[in-house]
């Protein structure tokens, strides 16, 4: 399309008619989005007209089409603000995609059209109350992104509301909105800080990252807000999203610098360290000293370092580097080296990442040479590297060079000189020079090498070598006459001004060593003076003056000539210099008659011994900035950079970080009500996330759900294992409150604890017999057995309550239901799914399909250990085992046992491993990691996984030590350990119990030391014997436990 004014009338008519008649079609879109459709004036205006029409229509797809085209314009950076009124109307659209695009448009143009933007505010205010959390959040997002000062109070109110929202996602959005509002109106700071304080207390991983980000933007100086949250932040760190991790670690680095004392305070000065490593032995002494002075860190400081360390394994380079800088700035020197390996790994990432990481390494390497020395070869330059990467690598290589490694480095540098990349070659030559002057041993070799480069074909190489040699000769003023002569010859051939200037300076400085050559060179230079570069001219003058002082006979006239030439040079620097020199050297010109005071000292001035330049890394001065920050990279203070404070001499009161337990208890209060919900929710996830703070948050979540809309219920499947743990604890304590003394266990024979243990082991023995009984009755594959003195078949309805048989010795009855997978179809439909997926190794799948029953982690893990291998039998190796009641990693059907190896013998034991293992009867063993060596008196832990195939038969296998010694051992398992606790609702329990048939009832005797009036201690006793899950109970007279054999049998008690 063409602008009509420019083109012929025919085009005009056709284009305008085309525009007017055209229906809003796909074709129109094409034209509008095509950047090549040159028309900017009239046709564009027309186009907007039909966009307006489309927006005004009542068809969603037309609106959407129009919005897409408008967004296309926005994306290309074209002006679309005149459509604002038409677009803003659609903010109420029901179509979510139209709405979203309107939001995008609104955020972009609201600032320019403030009055019209106000029209949309009420829509957002309404949306802020929407039951859908996504809509609430996005309303807040857009509302806070509209940069219109008039709505500040509204946004403030919205942020306050959202900060207390039940959905963590909305709270996260609130945290994001805080810096937005702050940038809009700085006066709101105080009020925002209050909200922020609340958000910082939040315990959801989703929120804290954003809250800390807001903190950094709004009030980074209010470090006092962090105190109470410090420990929480440390423990949540691993679970926060990667971007949040970066922000938190950077902030905590600053925090650590202001709150903890310097861990390296007593150590030698850091600079000394960097000089030390030349002398290997001293370095070792240094390390020893460090160990002796094992730095006593504040426990919180230690906590911070420890919780950040796993993040070195993050896939996100920014996280890794932020941990590295944390260690660099706050860790004791002996620990900093741990980060080196991870930093090296980043060097395989994208070019940009490499560049930034190398910059950080280069800066670190100037101070901590030892840290990167083992990785020297990783910094060898590849031909495929970009030039700036190559230069950084060279920088690092030279910083790392020590007398032991300089050999290989020089060899590499030599190869680099032959490369095709001129800046890189120049840098390589400079690097050789730096190595030469830093390491005295190789100075001569380097010098010879550089001299040989003087005959290189490449001009640039020669020039660079000249400059470097000049510096080197300065450090070694001893006789290098040959080299100076050779360089003097080069004056004829070298054209690079920098090199020429260097040669001239050298000749002047050491003219007495080459008394014949220097005046000759000056003569030549005087001839070509006018055609030289400025820098060369300056050096010609210097040479002339110096020669004039040492050898006035030959050169005085030349000198005058040169100064005369310079007097009329175009460059004022040169003219100034000439005048200045003339007045010192030829004071007669100054008409004072006779030498002035200055001219008498001229020799001292010009021929003073000059200190040799110390080639230093230009990364040395970056230490003032926080490693990995923008300021550090560009080596100037960036906007908004927060200085890293020096360590305080006295640590501020660490009590500030203590958190009162009071509020926590308050927060956990609603937990009990949340329980019903949480037990319904499916699947536990990571059992190893060990952030106790999560619990209360999760509980909040779940309690939210009760009153929140239904979709949220689906959403928050986020409950985790700890929560369940916690629930159980709570449950047991809750039960305790609820049924104080109703269930009274009478006990005929009070026994001591020891006896009780014996008793247990008796039970074990008997149980193995009973297993065989039940085996014969039932299918042999699932003889899940429980300590029992009585084994009989019983009806499930016969609930074993102590109340039933108060006087009997048999305090407890265990109803053990053996349900083989074959029976499942007979069970209630809802249970059908329960057992079918059991054969899959993943417990998660199981829980997913049958969400009401979830494996729970053990409430109590017993401390009783048994001996696996006696020290007398096995020349000193003692192995003890203890069941941890956690499912083994390798397979959920394995019970994991913790083995403690202790070497009592006098000799070191090497290569301890599992020898022959049983292969029959479904029993399998997952070995502990072989122990390479165990020195006398020391002990080690290992974990072994055993699938007992639901029998309590001891498992026999062999332990091998070294190559020749083999000891058969037997791992006995108490029946309480082959079962696993699960949780289920009471309702389900009863339902399932009713559905069971043909079951075994196993009874165990549990002897108590005193008449047990305390339900909690009773529960604990039971749990010590067997790994059971407690079921929330409404009936106060019954205790229900649920368990699951390792091969998945729901068992009730």
């Amino acid at each position, binding site marked *: 399309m063409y602008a009509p004014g420019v083109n012929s009338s025919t085009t005009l008519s056709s284009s305008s008619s085309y525009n007017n008649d055209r229906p809003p079609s796909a074709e129109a879109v094409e034209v509008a989005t095509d950047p090549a459709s040159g028309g900017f004036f009239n046709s564009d205006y027309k186009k907007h007209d039909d966009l307006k029409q489309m927006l005004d229509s009542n068809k969603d797809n037309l609106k*959407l089409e129009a919005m897409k085209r408008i967004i296309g314009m926005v*994306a290309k*950076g074209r002006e679309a603000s005149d459509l604002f009124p038409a677009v803003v109307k659609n903010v109420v659209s029901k179509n*979510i995609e139209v709405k979203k*695009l309107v*939001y995008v448009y609104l955020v*972009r143009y609201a600032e320019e059209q403030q009055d019209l933007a106000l029209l949309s505010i009420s829509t957002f205010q309404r949306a802020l109350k929407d039951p859908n959390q996504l809509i609430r*959040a996005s309303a807040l997002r857009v509302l806070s992104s509209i*940069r219109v000062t008039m709505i500040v109070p509204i946004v403030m109110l919205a942020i306050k509301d959202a900060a207390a929202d039940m*959905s963590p*996602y909305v709270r996260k959005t609130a945290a994001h909105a805080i810096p*937005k509002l702050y940038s809009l109106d700085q006066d709101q700071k105080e009020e925002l800080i209050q909200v922020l304080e609340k958000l910082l207390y939040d315990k959801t*991983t989703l929120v804290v990252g954003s809250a800390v*980000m807001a903190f950094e933007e709004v009030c980074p100086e209010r470090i006092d807000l962090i105190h109470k949250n410090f420990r929480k932040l440390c423990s949540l760190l*691993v*679970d926060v999203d*990667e*971007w949040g991790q970066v922000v938190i670690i950077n902030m905590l680095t600053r925090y650590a610098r202001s709150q903890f004392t310097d861990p390296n305070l007593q150590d030698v000065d850091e600079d000394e360290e960097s000089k030390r490593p030349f002398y290997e032995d001293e370095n070792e002494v240094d390390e020893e000293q460090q160990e002796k002075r094992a730095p006593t860190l504040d426990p919180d400081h230690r906590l911070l370092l420890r919780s950040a360390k796993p993040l070195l*394994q*993050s*896939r996100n*380079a*920014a996280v*890794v*580097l*932020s941990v590295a800088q944390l260690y660099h700035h706050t860790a004791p020197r002996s620990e900093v080296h741990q980060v080196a390996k991870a930093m090296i790994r980043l060097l395989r990432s*994208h*070019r*940009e*990442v490499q560049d*930034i990481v190398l910059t950080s390494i280069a800066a670190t390497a100037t101070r901590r040479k030892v840290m990167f020395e083992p*990785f020297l070869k990783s910094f*060898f330059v*590849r031909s495929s590297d*970009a030039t*700036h990467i190559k230069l950084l690598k060279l920088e690092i290589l030279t910083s790392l060079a020590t007398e032991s490694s300089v050999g290989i480095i020089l060899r*590499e540098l030599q190869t680099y000189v032959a490369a*095709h990349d001129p800046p890189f070659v120049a840098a390589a030559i400079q690097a050789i020079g730096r190595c030469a002057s830093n390491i005295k041993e190789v100075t001569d070799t380097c010098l010879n090498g550089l001299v040989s480069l003087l005959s290189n074909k490449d001009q640039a190489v020669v020039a660079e070598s000249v400059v470097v040699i000049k510096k080197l000769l300065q450090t070694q003023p001893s006789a290098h006459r040959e080299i100076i002569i050779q360089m003097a010859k080069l004056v004829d051939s070298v054209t690079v001004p920098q090199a020429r200037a260097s040669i001239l300076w050298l000749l002047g400085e050491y003219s007495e060593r080459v008394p014949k050559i220097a005046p000759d060179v000056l003569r030549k230079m005087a001839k070509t003076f006018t055609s030289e570069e400025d820098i060369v001219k300056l050096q010609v003058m210097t040479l002339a003056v110096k020669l004039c002082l040492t050898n006035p006979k030959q050169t005085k006239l030349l000198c005058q000539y040169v100064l005369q030439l310079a007097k009329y040079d175009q460059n004022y620097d040169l003219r100034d210099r000439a005048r200045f020199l003339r007045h010192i050297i030829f004071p007669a010109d100054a008409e004072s008659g006779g030498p002035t005071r200055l001219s008498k000292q001229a020799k001292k001035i010009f021929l003073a011994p000059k200190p040799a330049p110390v080639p230093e890394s230009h990364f040395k001065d970056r230490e003032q900035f926080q490693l*990995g920050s*923008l*300021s550090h*990279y*560009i080596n100037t203070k*960036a*906007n*908004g*950079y927060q200085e890293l404070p020096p360590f305080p001499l006295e640590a501020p009161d660490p009590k500030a970080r203590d958190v009162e337990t009071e509020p926590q208890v308050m927060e956990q209060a609603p937990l009990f009500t949340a329980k019903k919900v949480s037990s319904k929710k499916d*699947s536990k*996830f*990571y059992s*190893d996330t060990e952030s106790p703070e999560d619990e209360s948050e999760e509980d909040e*979540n779940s309690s939210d759900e009760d009153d929140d809309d239904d979709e949220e219920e689906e*959403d*928050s*499947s986020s409950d985790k294992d700890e929560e369940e743990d916690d629930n159980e604890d709570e449950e047991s304590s809750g039960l305790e409150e609820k049924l104080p003394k109703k269930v009274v266990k009478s006990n005929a024979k009070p026994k001591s604890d020891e006896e009780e243990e014996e008793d247990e082991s008796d039970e074990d023995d008997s149980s193995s017999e009973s297993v065989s009984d039940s085996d014969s009755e039932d299918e042999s594959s699932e003889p899940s057995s429980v300590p029992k003195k009585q084994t009989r078949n019983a009806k499930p309805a016969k609930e074993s309550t102590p109340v039933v048989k108060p006087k009997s010795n048999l305090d407890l009855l265990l109803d053990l239901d053996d349900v083989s997978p074959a029976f499942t179809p007979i069970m209630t439909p809802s249970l059908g799914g329960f057992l079918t997926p059991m054969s899959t190794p*993943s417990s*998660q*799948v199981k829980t997913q399909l049958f969400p009401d029953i979830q494996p729970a982690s053990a409430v109590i893990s017993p401390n009783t250990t048994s001996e696996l291998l006696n020290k007398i039998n096995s020349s000193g190796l003692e192995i003890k085992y203890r069941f941890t009641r956690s499912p083994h*990693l390798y397979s959920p059907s394995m019970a994991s046992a913790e083995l403690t190896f202790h070497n009592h013998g006098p000799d070191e034991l090497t290569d301890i491993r599992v020898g022959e293992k049983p292969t029959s009867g479904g029993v399998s063993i997952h070995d502990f990691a072989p122990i390479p060596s165990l020195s006398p008196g020391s002990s080690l832990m290992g*974990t072994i996984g055993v699938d007992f195939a639901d029998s309590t038969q001891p498992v026999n296998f062999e332990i091998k030590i070294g190559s020749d010694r083999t000891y058969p051992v037997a791992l006995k398992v108490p029946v309480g350990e082959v079962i696993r606790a699960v949780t289920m609702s009471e309702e389900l329990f009863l339902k399932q119990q009713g559905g069971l048939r043909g079951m075994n009832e196993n009874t165990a005797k549990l002897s108590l030391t005193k008449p047990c009036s305390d339900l909690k201690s009773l529960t604990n006793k039971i749990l010590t014997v067997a790994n059971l899950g407690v079921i929330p109970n409404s009936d106060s007279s019954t205790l229900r436990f649920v368990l699951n054999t390792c091969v998945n049998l729901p068992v009730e008690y």
Partner: protein
Amino acid sequence: MIHSLFIINPSGDVFMEKHWKSVISRSVCDYFFDHQRKASSPEDIPPVIATPHHYLISVYRSSMFFVAVCTTEVAPLFVVEFLHRVVDTFEDYFSECTESIIKEHYVVVYELLDEMLDNGFPLATESNILKELIKPPNILRTIANTVTGKSNVSSTLPSGQLSNIPWRRTGVKYTNNEAYFDMIEEVDAIIDKSGSTVCAEIQGYIDCCIKLSGMPDLSLSFVNPRLFDDVSFHPCVRFKRWESERVLSFIPPDGNFRLMSYHIGSQSIVAIPVYVRHSLCLRESGSGGRLDITLGPKQTLGRTIENVVLEIPMPKSVLNCGLVTNQGKYTFDPVSKLLVWEVGRIDVTKLPNIRGTVTNCHFSALYF
């Protein structure tokens, strides 16, 4: 943090811009263009450029520049890493990320950018979450949407966002449950003139394509896990378990992702599977040069080596190559000066060889 993003094509046009705070004029890119002109190749442009009021942090991917503008202090790696994540997301959505693809899907791109950053701070970067919020475009869905009037944008919050495993979406169902693992190892070696290895490092990746229903919990154990002394994981891997038992235990995201990457450093001895015997002389008898390269297997543990491709970046002075191979085909691109020889399988009995002449331009001709 990140103020604005400009996407620039190789010819220097800003073809997309997105602002998360107030608008910054695209003229700020002029500073970038200055550096671009100075640099000899796109790779040489420094990733961080400081201008009087702004800081430009850029990445170069698929011959496009993604230039982020920041106004205040920010960890540069944070921005770089994020920009790469943006490109990764685009690649994930559109299967490749080129200028034309971005222009074609500008609405989705814009929606994605809007969702990934809020006020310049990353909001949702997990591809599983994003895919629930904004459905990736495909023809089938486009047709279905036009018919049913549904949109590509979800109206509810993805369940992953709130859970402790934000990388996995819930309610995944497959009829065929499959999981594929690719092990990719790259050996980086520097070999000197005489053929001896100066240094060699291994960079390995385990890439997965997981199509499993529900919430699968997988564990992956290695025969010799002690080899991995320097690893990095996808956030889904339980780090504690790796620490204690050297088993990878994880609930995978749905779809493609990189499970772990590992690095075996220059300290350990790395076996290089092939050797290259070369004799290369670029200037001999006037303008011609000679090239003779033989490949051979080395330390292969009895396995055959397949799909061998040899790439030789030639110096700028090389005009053309006239070569003969006894196996495979070769191509020479006179623009990028890259000689590519697709060898295929290495047969021990008849070692692949390439030889011939290289045409050089005279250096002197360049000067006069």
